[in-house]
């Protein structure tokens, strides 16, 4: 359990200029969570994650790990605590003069283990990140994804309870990002390690997190289960982030790019249907078509699995009797489907 309470962090240049990087932030992270913290650069997310292992010391507020306020610890106690918190970075931060295995054993220098045990542990970790054949390579000989795997193995050396990931996939290409995220997810379930993921990409949150906090200008503006946030975002910033990952929101672009490609009659209604419940087993579109005697033309559909449940929806054109369309929309809302009518002439969204 990680509890950040009323964290304020002010950076000062010693003179009159000071920047409030974190303004009274409180976040609580449960054991076993993969907790995502998302925000644009400068939102304070990297500073916040560095408060968890006190690489940044908060100006005020408490950082409790399993009930112990680590801001009160003596330097030596803090170092012991840090061994229980692994960390990986955007630029990997591997020691260039050390081989892969020497990098992994670096945190184990004063662990009290024998040399055989240390190397055994390092080789086990190398196997876990699927890099056993690179034991004696130098970091410069590895690809970005391999470097991050070594960094993950190094972060796990002391068998930590918590793994902090600071933009760990931001310097990697999409396929490599995917494989690193899968690895993190595997480690989370296999080792039951709590993972805190800092990112500016909603895709990362969608792929592996179960909880998310959205940060903006030093404040947490929205938190919750990833599914709920995706199904029902409250803040504009959250909605903006979700838009970056869903095809449903590309409709406006498609319509404005291809005004002649889609024919829509005067009485037709274009709407975005979003599933709000974790259950879409019922064939809603089909039911509506029959029940209200309408034609539903699916323009776009995008359903993904988020936190183990399908989320997403479709963009459809309702054509038929306006009264029946109204009835159909009401029926859908009763079935916990959110209906956003898209009035693309004015290019604005009206939340019905």
């Amino acid at each position: 359990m990680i509890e950040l309470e009323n964290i304020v962090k002010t950076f000062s240049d010693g003179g009159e200029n000071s920047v409030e990087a974190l303004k009274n932030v409180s976040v609580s992270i449960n054991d076993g969570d993969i907790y995502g913290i998302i925000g644009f650069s400068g939102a304070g997310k990297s500073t916040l994650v560095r408060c968890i292992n006190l690489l940044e010391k908060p100006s005020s507020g408490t950082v409790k790990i399993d009930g112990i306020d680590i801001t009160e610890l003596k330097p030596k106690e803090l170092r012991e605590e840090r061994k229980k918190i692994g960390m990986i970075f955007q630029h990997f931060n591997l020691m260039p003069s050390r081989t892969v295995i020497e990098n992994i054993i670096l945190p184990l220098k004063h662990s009290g283990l024998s040399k055989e045990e240390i190397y055994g542990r390092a080789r086990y970790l190398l196997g876990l990140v699927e890099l056993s054949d690179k034991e004696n390579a130098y970091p410069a000989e590895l690809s970005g994804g391999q470097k991050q795997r070594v960094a993950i193995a190094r972060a796990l050396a002391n068998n930590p309870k918590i793994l902090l990931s600071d933009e760990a996939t931001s310097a990697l290409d999409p396929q490599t990002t995917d494989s690193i995220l899968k690895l993190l997810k595997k480690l989370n379930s296999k080792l039951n390690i709590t993972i805190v993921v800092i990112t500016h990409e909603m895709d990362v949150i969608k792929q592996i997190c179960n909880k998310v906090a959205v940060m903006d200008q030093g404040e947490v503006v929205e938190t919750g289960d990833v599914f709920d946030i995706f199904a029902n975002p409250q803040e504009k910033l959250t909605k903006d982030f979700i838009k970056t990952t869903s095809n449903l929101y590309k409709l406006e672009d498609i319509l404005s790019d291809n005004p002649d490609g889609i024919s829509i009659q005067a009485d037709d209604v274009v709407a975005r249907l979003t599933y709000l419940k974790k259950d879409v087993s019922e064939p809603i579109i089909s039911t509506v078509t029959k029940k209200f005697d309408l034609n539903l033309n699916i323009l776009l559909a995008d359903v993904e699995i988020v936190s183990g449940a399908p989320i997403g929806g479709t963009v459809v054109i309702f054509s038929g009797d306006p009264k029946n369309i109204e009835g159909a929309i009401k029926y859908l809302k009763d079935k916990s489907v959110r209906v956003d009518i898209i009035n693309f002439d004015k290019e604005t969204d009206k939340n019905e």
Partner: protein
Amino acid sequence: MNNSFAELAPNLSDKWADFIQAIIDTFIMELWAGAIVFIIGFIFGIILTVTRSGGILENKYIYKVLDIITNLFRSIPFIILLTALMPLSRLLMGTAIYIRGAIVPLVFGAVPFFTRQVQSALAQTSDGLIEAATAMGLSPFDIIIRVYLRESIGPLARATTITAISLLGLTAMAGVVGAGGLGDFAIRYGHDRNMTDITWATVIVLVIVVSVFQFAGDKVAKKNSHD
């Protein structure tokens, strides 16, 4: 052979024993002063690195004092240091002349230079590595040994090479306080008595020594580079 050598460099063959003694004197100065400079400059360079603003043992007072002292002694020309430090030499070494008298000014002349060299070598270690090491729970001492120094072997080897060569230049000047050595030998005979062959011989010896230093330094630097 001996005859042709005597024809080619008559003065040098005449002063051969002095020439060998000058080489030995230069080496003694280089080694003694070099060893002391290496240790003190290393420690000062590390202290400046870790106490700087944002360093792992940030301490602006220690940093400021050491920074000012380093700048002060770097800006004094060596020829002035040689004479100005005579009282201190007498106090520490018992004499202000001969090789013993040259060690103190050589150390004062080279330590600030080497300190800056060490500082800039260590500054090449990226902040990310230090951050990663801190996050691992390594102590400041471990970070100095296992990260700063370990990751800087190449740049430190180059810094040592440059300093050793620059120190060799300083020992040549030490002849002013009667320390002897190659510089003094070249001035006394090569210049003052217009014995050109002695000047040339001195220069050749110095070129060889500098080349050996440079070769060894490059070798160490290359062996420890994995970029």
